[in-house]
């Protein structure tokens, strides 16, 4: 029997980036807030110390910072005809664990979604007609617009200290920035990163071809910065150990550097680590949450009553928490009904390698997680899709986030995968290869979804989440189209050889793509096709808010974190201004 604890105003499940933001804002508003984090505490000092923190074997290969698959895995299959099996080692995506969550090991790539993204179905149908979209795609509008979110994007970027160059200031296109971006009310808080040499070569070629290159917006500090919370960050020194690692220099925007120290100083907030939340508890009508039940490190169960439950446990962990708690109707792919687990999407990336002769030194190790140079000409709805028969797109970015020895060894096509010739080839090409990442959109389909696995369970005896996913035909066409264009840029970059790798089905969990899993608890304006209203409030239990990329109805071709932060601030603002005054559904269904 779970021990019942003293009631609090708010319980936040998961203390990562979004959990920290929600908790900080609500505790500052005077509410008593408990943060439950399944992992351990960790701080820049003393936990993140070089040279140990640069241990590639521990962090990149053995995934030292990721969710422990021996306790909590997930199962995977490509389609409903297959039997799903547990993922025993993370590779395609890398969900973080411990205090700060995935916000500790991210790269710092900080893109806003565009005006079109938030009204995606409307926009596509207006531009190309109702019959243009593949009928198997379940794309939809978000229920919130870019204009509404702009102040919150701005707030989040200033929290992070993002460095970049505006391309569109209040509707005016700015030289040097991304002309395709949606308007922003002011400049980035910091200047852009230094360009890598590969980026310089890319910029030249892309400009000659009439495209619009710009430096990637980055939350690796480009100069010393004090954020609006009063926390000081140091300048990045381009060591090339961002993603999969923690920054030892206070130079990457992470919960630890931009918000947690402020949150923990607030006496209204209490952090409990190694607290594994098992479910959200509901009242007898199943219309209101009464709190959560969690297990501590010894397995003892506690019931934490709360008036407000905020779930911020990473995209598909959010889906699992909703399913385990029985909030919202689970999605059924046969009927297309139900909302929890619906519209799961991911990312469709491609790669292009540009091989130079030995006179061109790329120096891949002089890099940060977000120091790329890119074009947005083939992303989003920035070009006419009419002749091509697909929707969405990719940015094309000359980017090397690292030159780490175990992971980075590009070789031209035709090189053997092992042995003497392979060794000679990696020695020859290591410092003379540029890389283009194509970071493409992912459209939801009726058959890609998340549900509870009927067979496999976690260390607490609860069913694992089951992922059913493969690349939709739309996205396969998209990635091929974008890679073809990127290869042309590569040829223009003065290479000896260019190799393009579009993403091809079947999707495999054993090849890295991105940790940008989205959907499953999506936001929207219709309770039949969304689990949350426009404020990330559950349609079914009004005192449950689910913050995360689980809210995205589909995933555009940009990295998701900036939009995640904007939505969190947007949601918590609505909680503070509306919900707390009159608890109940903020949108009538």
């Amino acid at each position: 029997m779970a021990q019942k604890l003293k009631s609090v105003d708010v319980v936040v499940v998961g203390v990562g980036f979004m959990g920290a933001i929600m908790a900080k804002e609500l505790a500052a508003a005077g509410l008593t807030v408990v943060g439950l984090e399944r992992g351990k505490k960790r701080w820049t000092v003393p936990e993140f110390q070089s040279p140990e923190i640069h241990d590639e074997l521990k962090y990149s290969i053995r995934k030292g910072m990721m969710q422990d698959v021996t306790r909590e895995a997930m199962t995977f299959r490509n389609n409903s005809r297959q039997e799903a099996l547990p993922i025993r080692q993370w590779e395609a995506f890398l969900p973080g664990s411990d205090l700060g969550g995935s916000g500790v090991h991210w790269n710092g790539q900080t893109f806003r979604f565009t005006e079109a993204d938030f009204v995606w179905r409307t926009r596509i149908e207006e531009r190309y007609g109702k019959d243009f979209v593949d009928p198997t795609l379940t794309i939809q509008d978000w229920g919130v617009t870019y204009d509404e979110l702009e102040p919150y994007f701005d707030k989040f970027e200033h929290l992070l200290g993002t460095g970049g160059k505006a391309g569109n200031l209040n509707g005016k296109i700015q030289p040097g920035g991304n002309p395709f971006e949606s308007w922003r009310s002011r400049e980035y808080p910091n200047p852009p990163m230094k360009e890598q040499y590969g980026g310089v070569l890319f910029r030249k070629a892309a400009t000659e071809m009439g495209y619009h290159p710009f430096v990637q917006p980055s939350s690796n500090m480009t100069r010393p910065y004090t954020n609006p919370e009063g926390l000081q960050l140091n300048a990045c020194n381009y060591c090339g150990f961002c993603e999969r690692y923690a920054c030892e220099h206070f130079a990457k925007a992470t919960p630890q550097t931009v918000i947690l120290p402020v949150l923990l100083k607030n006496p209204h907030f209490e952090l409990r680590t190694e607290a594994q939340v098992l479910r959200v508890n509901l009242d007898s009508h199943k219309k209101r949450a009464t709190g959560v039940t969690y297990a501590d490190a010894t397995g003892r169960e506690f019931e934490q009553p709360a008036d407000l439950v905020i779930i911020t446990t990473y995209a598909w962990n959010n889906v699992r928490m909703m399913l385990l708690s029985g909030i919202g109707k689970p999605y059924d792919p046969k009927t297309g009904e139900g909302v929890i687990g619906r519209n799961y999407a991911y990312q469709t990336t491609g790669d292009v390698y540009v091989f130079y002769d030995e006179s061109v030194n790329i120096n891949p190790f002089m890099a940060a997680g977000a120091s790329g140079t890119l074009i947005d000409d083939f992303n989003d709805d920035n070009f006419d899709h009419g002749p091509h028969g697909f929707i969405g797109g990719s940015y094309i970015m000359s980017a090397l986030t690292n030159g780490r020895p175990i992971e980075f060894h590009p070789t031209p096509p035709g090189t053997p995968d092992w042995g003497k010739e392979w060794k000679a080839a990696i020695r020859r090409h290591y410092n003379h290869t540029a890389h283009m990442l194509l970071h493409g959109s992912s459209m939801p389909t009726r058959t890609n979804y998340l549900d509870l696995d009927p067979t496999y369970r976690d260390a607490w005896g609860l069913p694992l989440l089951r992922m059913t996913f493969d690349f939709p035909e739309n996205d396969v066409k998209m990635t091929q189209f974008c890679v073809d264009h990127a290869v042309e840029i590569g040829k223009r970059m003065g290479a000896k050889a260019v190799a393009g790798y579009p993403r091809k089905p079947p999707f495999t969990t054993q090849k890295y793509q991105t940790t940008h899993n989205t959907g499953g608890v999506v936001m929207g304006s219709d309770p039949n096709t969304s689990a949350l209203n426009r404020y990330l409030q559950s349609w079914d239990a009004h005192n449950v808010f689910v913050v995360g990329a689980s809210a995205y109805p589909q995933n555009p071709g940009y990295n998701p974190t900036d939009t995640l932060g904007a939505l969190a601030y947007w949601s918590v603002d609505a909680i503070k201004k509306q919900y707390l005054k009159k608890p109940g559904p903020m949108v009538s269904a």
Partner: protein
Amino acid sequence: MKLNRWMLILTVALSTAGFLLTRSFAAESPKALRGDPLRGGEIVARGTDYGVVACARCHAFDGTADGSSAFPKLSGISSYYLAKQLRDFASGLRTDAIMSAIARKMKAEDIADVSEYYSGVSGTPTPAPPAAQHLLALGARLATVGDDEKKVQACEGCHGAAGRGEDPAIPSLAGQYAGYIGFQMRMWKMGYRKNDANQQMANIARRLSPQDIEAIGAYFERLPRKDSAKDKRRP
């Protein structure tokens, strides 16, 4: 048959030699910037007739300087770093009452040669003046772990394990005079020195107390200085 075998061996030997030759040229292509240590040694000993003062007067022949801690040790530091500092003194990016005037008189090849000379010498160990235990403990903590409250990362995160530097861009601090380290930290802190990338050192120094700075100097002075001539890791 016998001839063929010899031909074969000769061919292999020649092509191996050719291969090695090519490889070493490839590896040495950045060395176009590399100075001549012998000529550098002459400048160190005698100065030049156009007014460059003999470096050894203050820094000694083995780069250990005079023990006063007014002048830094130069042994164990990369030629890249030394040359950059001399160029910065000459351009005014870094200023010093003595060094600015000297560096302005140096030609590009003088800078390259002198830097090459000092990067290759072996210094002489010097005794560190006594320091309180608590100061050494504080220095060790700041140098190896950092300070979460002040948002100061560990010095050794950039300056290398045991302060041995990350050649070529980041200098070794091990065995450097505490007085000199402290002086430079105060220069960064007060804004007189700012010739590093991204204001990294100024940003750190501003957050350190006078005691922190003293402690860091005391800690590093006690570490064995890197011996350039013997250190095989030197590029």
